[in-house]
């Protein structure tokens, strides 16, 4: 035991030596916790870049509070609870952040919120934790998200298919929190509306062939296959094998399937019966503003969850400005700057927002990923559209209700 204590002390001293540099009093730090290593390593860098863009804009346009800079502390939550709690503890206690953007994965969000940020009274906004379990957190109003719960999209997609006259489908979902969450809410809503689920099965990631799974699903007699998976991963394999073997006629995907990798690999002419749902910003001016700024800074605005990451960071900055840097007032301030009524603020309009806040006027941030009117649990309702393939990209054909 002695050795453990000594080792812990040595660790703390090491940390102290490294951190002895003085901090600027007026600067404000926020934590960017992301799954840098681990299963979403390919997605995390773009998401972090988008959040950093928001921070750069804040600092270019007058900084935060009284001329301070907004500083980002990047932590690796690695998509697992062990590393997420470790990264959150460091951000909260060593770097003294007053809010975090992220972690990215739902399990990491649950663990970090439960054992670190909520007890410490730190605001958390996740741009990509989509599990319905996050809604149920006992979070003292400190956990928010700029991405909607999987529940919303699954239900909206079920209603849209019914409205388009599709009454019998088979469902193939990737067996993780994303795929399964979508599939469950889709199934509940579709069956409640009188539809028939003729086949329903989960599959594991990364197998070479899904023909037997598809044959099993097709046996139920449905013409339409709903795929809850990622279009640059297993979802592409499933779609290709379903097309090659003519198992189904129509294919429906959710936002993860709206990938240009599918069009590049399978070709537009083979995809006339492929549709997908995806979130859209209602005020497209917001989305354009973000796309332009992010492209100019060298990012790819089509990368998944970049809009939600940007919005999360920008909203946190607005909330800090509104609360005057007071940690205890942050969640109330976040609700105030995100919700109507108020003067609309688009992505990048930091100087304007700062001036309005200084004048005591109410503002309403219209984000790249949506309006972000938070409900009681800190969730946002999704705004989704139904897309078809057009040329080398996707085109929205209908709003989803």
């Amino acid at each position, binding site marked *: *035991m002695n*050795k*453990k204590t000594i*080792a*812990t*002390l*040595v*660790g*703390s001293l*090491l*940390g*102290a030596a*490294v*951190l*002895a540099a003085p901090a600027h009093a007026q600067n404000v730090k926020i934590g960017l916790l992301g799954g*840098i*290593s681990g299963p979403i390593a390919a997605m995390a*860098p773009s998401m972090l870049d988008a959040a*950093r863009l928001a921070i750069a804009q804040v600092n270019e346009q007058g900084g935060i509070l009284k001329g301070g800079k907004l500083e*980002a*502390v*990047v932590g*690796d939550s690695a*998509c*697992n*609870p*062990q*590393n997420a*709690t*470790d*990264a959150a*503890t*460091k951000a*909260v*206690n*060593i770097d*003294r952040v007053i809010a975090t953007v992220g972690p990215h994965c*739902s*399990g*990491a969000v*649950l*663990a970090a919120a*439960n*054992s*670190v940020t909520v*007890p*410490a*009274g730190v605001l958390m906004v996740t741009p990509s934790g989509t599990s*319905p*379990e996050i809604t*149920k*957190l*006992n979070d003292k109003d400190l956990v928010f998200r700029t991405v909607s719960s999987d529940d919303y999209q699954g239900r909206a997609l079920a209603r849209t298919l019914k409205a388009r006259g599709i009454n019998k489908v088979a469902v193939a979902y990737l*067996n*993780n*929190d994303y795929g*399964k*969450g979508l599939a469950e809410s889709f199934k509940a809503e579709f069956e409640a509306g009188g539809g028939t689920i003729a086949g329903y099965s*989960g599959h*594991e990631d990364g197998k070479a062939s899904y023909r037997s799974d598809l044959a099993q699903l097709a046996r139920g007699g449905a013409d339409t296959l709903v795929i809850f998976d990622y279009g640059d991963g297993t979802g592409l394999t499933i779609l290709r094998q379903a097309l090659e073997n003519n198992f189904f006629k129509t294919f429906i995907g959710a936002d993860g399937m709206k990938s240009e990798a599918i069009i590049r690999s399978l070709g537009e002419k083979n995809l006339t019966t492929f549709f997908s749902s995806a979130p859209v910003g209602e005020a497209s001016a917001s989305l354009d503003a973000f796309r332009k700024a992010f492209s100019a800074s060298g990012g790819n605005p089509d990368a998944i969850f970049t809009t939600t990451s940007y919005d999360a960071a920008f909203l946190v900055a607005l909330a800090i400005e509104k609360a005057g840097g007071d940690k205890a007032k942050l969640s109330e301030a976040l609700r105030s700057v995100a919700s109507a009524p108020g003067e609309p603020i688009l992505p990048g309009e930091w100087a304007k927002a700062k001036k309005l806040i200084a004048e005591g006027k109410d503002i309403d941030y219209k984000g790249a990923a949506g309006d972000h009117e938070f409900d009681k649990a800190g969730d946002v309702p999704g705004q989704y559209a139904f897309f078809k393939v057009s040329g080398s990209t996707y085109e929205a054909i209908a709003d989803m209700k």
Partner: protein
Amino acid sequence: MDIIGLANYAVFMAILIGIYALLALGLNIQWGFSGLFNAGIAGFFAIGAYTSAILTSLPAAHRLGGFELPLLLGWAGAMVVAAAIAWPIGKICLRFRSDYLAIATIGVAEIIRLVIRTEGWLTGGVRGITGVPRPFGDLPYMQSQLAYLALVVVLVLAAYLLVERQLKAPWGRMMRAIRDNENAAAAMGKRVAERRLQAFVFGSALMGLAGALFVHFNRSITPEAIDPMIATFLIWIMLILGGSGNNRGAILGAAVIWIIWSVSEILTDRLPTEIAIQAKYVRVFIIGLTLQLVLRFRPEGILPERQHGTSPPRS
């Protein structure tokens, strides 16, 4: 410098070190003293975590649970169930030679992980279990962390003393005899298969307890926590570095590796922001490098196994 922040961070690290120390002690019984190559630590860790979560959590519609049993029963249950699942696995797999045993246990851990992911009625599936109670969880942040640390320290200490006592007893000598020369031990009338099974079950029960401590600390568990990197291989590195066959070495190894793993991120954060993302991988590299250096220059670990009595050194 902010002393309270540092103290909070140190307390958090100590809690995780305690949990990893239990895992390393469990592995030490299996590998250090009995020569059983268990590469499926994550599986038993997960069984403990989920058992305690199911026994003590609030009711939920979509999964088994809602027994709301007292915490101690949850922890005892975690050990019992981990041991009960280890028994048939050991019964079948322990006949293999050590390298085959390693492959078999990797497979077993993967089976456990997939069962947890897919059997939603039992474990909540990929969404996991939330609403697990945490002892002293209603206290303010720092007090609650300190209280949990005290619990973890008491349990690690108890486990250390009990394991140490067991290994000084005739049972421990017998286990080392079986490990070092199976045929000789068998010739002296020791029931090799039975003893190995005992060691496997004991070690797995301790791993189950570590899982239970982990789930109550985080108040939630999802299958992402059963990643073999963080829940199997990291523990092997801890034991090899600390010194397999030495319980203090196991605990020390857990502390050293976790501190390197966690503190190195603070160091790499001082690098320019342009390479911050790449720099996150440096710590994985540092852990690998540490292991290489230890294996090259001190293969017996920091605290090597103590030689008992007058027996000649192991070759």
